[in-house]
């Protein structure tokens, strides 16, 4: 029997949520600096964490990469074309990515909600 506190899905999803909110900071920074001369747009790439975590949700022994593991190594500069003032922020791209990132975050929260409700339901009503 897995007690709720030992369920490996929780830390896995938690980790993804951390990455998603960290990425939100970078995307927001790009929007804030869309007119700043010389500013280079940045983003995070956590595709590997994403697939790692989804696989992890099924096994319980593997090591989970904490968010501090080379967080900056996942950050990269965008190759979008540069404006005359040295700024390479593409506003449309940033807003689209922010929306998609938001949806990803909300989906994860939704998944957690379902899980928690199911667990709660099993605990309180399962005894009948």
């Amino acid at each position: 029997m897995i007690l709720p506190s030992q369920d490996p899905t929780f830390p896995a999803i938690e980790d993804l949520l951390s990455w998603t909110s960290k990425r939100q900071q970078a995307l927001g920074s790009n929007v804030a600096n869309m007119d700043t001369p010389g500013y280079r747009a940045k983003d995070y790439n956590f595709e590997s964490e994403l697939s790692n975590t989804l696989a992890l949700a099924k096994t319980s022994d593997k090591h989970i990469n904490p968010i501090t593991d080379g967080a900056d190594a996942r950050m990269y500069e965008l190759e979008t074309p540069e404006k005359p003032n040295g700024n390479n922020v593409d506003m449309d791209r940033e807003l689209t990515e922010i929306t998609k990132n938001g949806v990803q975050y909300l989906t994860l929260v939704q998944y957690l909600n379902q899980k928690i409700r199911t667990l709660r339901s099993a605990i309180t009503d399962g005894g009948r």
Partner: protein
Amino acid sequence: MNLITAIDVNASGLTAQRKRVEVSSSNLANSQTTRTAEGGPYRRKDVVFTTDSFDETLNIVMDSGVAGVEVSQVVEDPRPFDRRYEPGHPDADAEGYVAYPNVNVMEEMANLVEGSRSYEANLAAISIVKTMINRTLDLGR
């Protein structure tokens, strides 16, 4: 705290763009001002955006991927004034020319539109983060 920091970042964007729009409005309002308090016509002003990587609320330098923005200075546009031949004008010089502000109305209008577009973009980002925070607070309910 990542999400709250994200809001701070875009909030700084709101402030910076608002200042830009204010300065632009001031330019437009004074596009015909031939005599200022300091003497001489109004000289167009511009804002300088710089990246701000210091988080005032937390009093720490932010992570490398995170950067707010601020208007570091308001500078004067060095382009020459617009000289027009109006000998009857009270501010005309010895040759009958009046120096008008170096404000280009079309350019200024475009600047206003861009500034408000950037403002809206920052607002949209904040709105999405607000939703993310609210749903997180409702976790499990």
